[in-house]
């Protein structure tokens, strides 16, 4: 018999045995149940975020309509212009700085329901204003912090944590079980390579939970997401590759452990220990080390710098005002508390705050990037970390897409500031024409943001230990002890 025939025969045999094993059906039931619940849950969360975005947009439309109406009333002379600049729909500084602030949101991708990623930590929409970035960037959505700490039961959790256990449950006694039953000696006495038979067994025992999981995920997505999946062929293909590579890693790990030639109980313990190491210990050490090496910046530093800058600007404004009043004693328009003076003072303070906050936030961002870069390098120590990251990237809720989003928000903020601050500096009042030319934000998904290459390098990162373990398993199974 050729090796291929042996392999196929071994697989057939194994399937006939396995289907009589209640453990298989238990595992399959768990796969279907958990994948369905995780997808349903992801859908609930994404729908809630979408509802929050829709509500924010409605609120924005109402706000703008009210401002437009106020402006029309003033221009038609129906109402007197307000004496407080922050109530005036014509005042560029206060309109751009708050009352007309624009909602920006990162649109969900079709596969968003598969991984919550970082999306629960950011608000569904940011309200960009002409103020300094720190005034809107740190807004948070209301969430029970204990829930953020625990994390959600999403598909990424199921695939990273539970999926390996389904595979291990069926493969931990791949060889040891046969030895304990005495059937390994029987196999070894046949004119076939034990290794090939074991490979056949592994293919069936690991392949079935893997294929059923992939099928369950696809079926669930097709049911929940429906037609839009057509536009997500590429991420879907990458998702299935990720599942196969990650599953294969755990399967060859089980084979390699079996190759050590110990009993089933020992294998089970060692595999659980490996699971704990890969999923819990290594990730927690990676995080602790990258946080200790490049500590997250203290945002208080930024707060203080912005406050100090505004105190200075305020003081400078006092001095300028005193000089002006010395030179123009008759002038009343620039008196303390007057409309014009309040606007100019606010402008001066805001410009000073912007200059300082942006400088410090850039330095903070650089520090955060260093921390992330280190964590991403260290992530190669744990396939679970790579898989977790890859799943969020595929879902569009990972770091790369958020980074791209914040970069685009930054550019939009510049544009928005430019529009309103330039008018405020020229002391121009806003007109109805200006209202229809407010800058608009729309997020452009850029295929060049490197999501694919990141996922690919993550998969290679899982593939390398896979190959090492496969070599180890092949070696171990060749010299496998036949009797206990």
């Amino acid at each position: 018999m050729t090796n291929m025939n042996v392999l196929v025969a071994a697989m057939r045999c194994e399937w006939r045995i396995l289907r009589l094993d209640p453990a298989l059906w238990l595992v399959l039931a768990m796969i279907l149940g958990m994948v369905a619940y995780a997808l349903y849950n992801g859908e609930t969360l994404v729908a809630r975020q979408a509802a929050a975005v829709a509500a924010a947009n409605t609120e924005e439309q109402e706000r703008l309509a009210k401002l437009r109406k106020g402006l029309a009333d003033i221009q038609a002379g129906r109402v007197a212009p307000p004496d407080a600049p922050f109530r005036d729909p014509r005042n560029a500084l206060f309109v751009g700085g708050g009352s007309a602030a624009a909602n920006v949101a990162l649109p969900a991708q079709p596969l968003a329901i598969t991984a919550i990623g970082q999306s629960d930590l950011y608000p569904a929409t940011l309200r960009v204003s002409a103020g300094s970035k720190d005034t809107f960037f740190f807004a948070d959505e209301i969430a029970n912090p204990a829930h953020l700490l625990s994390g959600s039961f999403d598909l990424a959790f199921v695939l990273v944590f539970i999926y390996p256990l389904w595979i291990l449950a069926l493969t931990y006694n791949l060889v040891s079980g046969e030895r304990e039953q005495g059937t390994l000696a029987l196999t070894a006495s046949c004119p076939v390579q034990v290794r090939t038979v074991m490979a056949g067994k592994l293919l069936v025992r690991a392949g079935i939970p893997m294929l059923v999981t992939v099928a369950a995920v696809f079926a669930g997505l097709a049911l929940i997401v429906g037609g839009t999946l057509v536009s997500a062929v590429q991420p879907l293909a990458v998702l299935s590759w990720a599942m196969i590579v990650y599953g294969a890693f755990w399967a060859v790990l089980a084979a390699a452990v079996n190759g050590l030639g110990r009993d089933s109980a020992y294998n089970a313990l060692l595999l659980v220990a490996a699971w704990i190491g890969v999923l819990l210990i290594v990730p927690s050490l990676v995080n602790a080390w990258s946080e200790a090496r490049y500590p997250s910046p203290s945002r208080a530093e930024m707060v203080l710098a912005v406050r100090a800058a505004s105190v200075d600007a305020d003081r400078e404004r006092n001095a300028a005002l005193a000089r002006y009043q010395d030179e123009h004693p008759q002038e009343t328009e620039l008196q303390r508390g007057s409309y014009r003076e309040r606007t100019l003072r606010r402008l001066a303070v805001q410009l000073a705050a912007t200059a300082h906050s942006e400088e410090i936030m850039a330095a903070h961002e650089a520090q955060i990037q260093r921390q992330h870069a280190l964590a991403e390098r260290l992530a190669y120590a744990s396939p679970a970390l790579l898989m977790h990251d890859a799943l969020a990237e595929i879902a569009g809720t990972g770091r790369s897409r958020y980074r791209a989003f914040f970069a685009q928000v930054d550019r939009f903020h510049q544009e928005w500031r430019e529009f309103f601050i330039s008018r405020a500096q020229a002391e121009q009042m806003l007109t109805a024409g200006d209202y229809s030319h407010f800058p608009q934000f729309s997020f452009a998904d850029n295929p060049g943001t490197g999501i694919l290459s990141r996922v690919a390098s993550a998969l290679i990162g899982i593939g390398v230990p896979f190959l090492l373990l496969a070599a180890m398993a092949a070696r171990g199974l060749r010299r496998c002890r036949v009797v206990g």
Partner: protein
Amino acid sequence: MNTVAADIAVRVVTTSGRWRVAHAVAVKELLDIYRDARFRWLAALTLLLMVCALIFSVDQVQRTDRDRAAAAQGDRQIWTAQGAKDPHVAAHFGQYAFKPQSPLALADPGIDAYVGSAVWLEAHKQNEVQFRAARDNPLSARLSSLSLAFVLQAVMPLVAIMLGFAAFSGERERGTLRQLLSLGIRPMDLLAGKGLAVVGVLVAMLLPAFIGILISCFMFADSSMFSLGDQVARLVWLALGYVLYLGGFAALALAVSALSRTSRMALVGLLGFWLINCFLVPRLMTDVVRNTLPLPTALEFRQAIAQDKKKTFGHDESHPAFVAFRDRVLKQYGVTRVEDLPVNFRGLSLREDDENGNRIFDRHFGTLQEAYYRQDLWRAAPGFVFPLLAIQPYSMGLAGSDTRGQYHFTSAAEQHRRAIQAIVSDDLIRNGRYGDSTYVAGPDLWARISAFSYRPPQAWWALSAQAVNLFVLLAWCLAAGLLAVYAVRRLRPV
């Protein structure tokens, strides 16, 4: 093994004390555990993890303390140096309150990374606490993070399982259980002895962790803000919670071992329970609670406040409520024009508006907080079956790093905000003249307004909030103990 059995038999005959039997069993078990290389590895790794967790936590806590102290000092300087200005403008400029970290965050950082650390105390408005540290961390931080609480909650139960899973089934497989029972040893005494050994080892492993926290607390805690006695009291209660949590696991392991036909089945069952308890159920309950008891969105919350605030007048002097208030004040002082009032009407109206606003904030923030508590209560409810759900909030609560601790801080900060507003409005009432926009207050007023100084709650406050979870843990431990008694009563020697 035969000699051990014989030795026990001799002891039984000579002393005929049940305690002696349990003691002998415990000593034998401890010797076995000590000789087991697998256990030595596991214990060494667990202790190493504890040391790492403590080192990283000390580094993090110290850094946070340093940053906070510098920030508080810096904000004070900016506040006092703001120069002469209209007191109400200064109130708008406001102060910042920075949250001090509880020293026991060393043991359990809890939700610290998922809540803000600084809150702006400005006029008219209760702000939310800003800057969740988790937003800056890499995605991997959501997978698992190293802390003593993680080691105690997730790793130590494994140690308990490893110590107990073969206690009875292993003896049965080796045939020694039959011998032991044939000597007339009661299964209950066997359980007592084995239980003593397992719990003894667990306590011995907890001790270095708690001593480490205690020493770090004495070395690094800010004793001007946190009383050390209070931290010790919290630590003692914390230790009690963990003993109940792990004691329950030890009892469960012994029970399952007595009930299972083979050690392998006992191990698989116990590992399955460990997985469900530590990983599946917490996330499952989080989602169930979030979906069944939803919170408002930030927008809804702010809109609801804004809706109520519309009924108050703010700076709007044409608001009907403003007119009504003005008429009331004029009547009270028996004058017809605000200019004739003996006090500054602008200050009075600011104070009135603040008081109206405070009632609104109390109602809305209070309701939100209750919604959090309700979610937390239901999430912890299945804790007597899956004890992680109870030990997690209990541990965070005693460590001062839970939602209640955060609310205690935000409430104190809000009281300080109100105190600032009251002093500033009072200054305007007494010193300002109505209609005069040039009145300014100077540095002496800013200096008179104290900096925010936070008194963290006492241990009993945290404990009373966590009493339910303590009872749940007690119930878990008792239930597991009863299961062990039940299992051992029907112990079959073969």
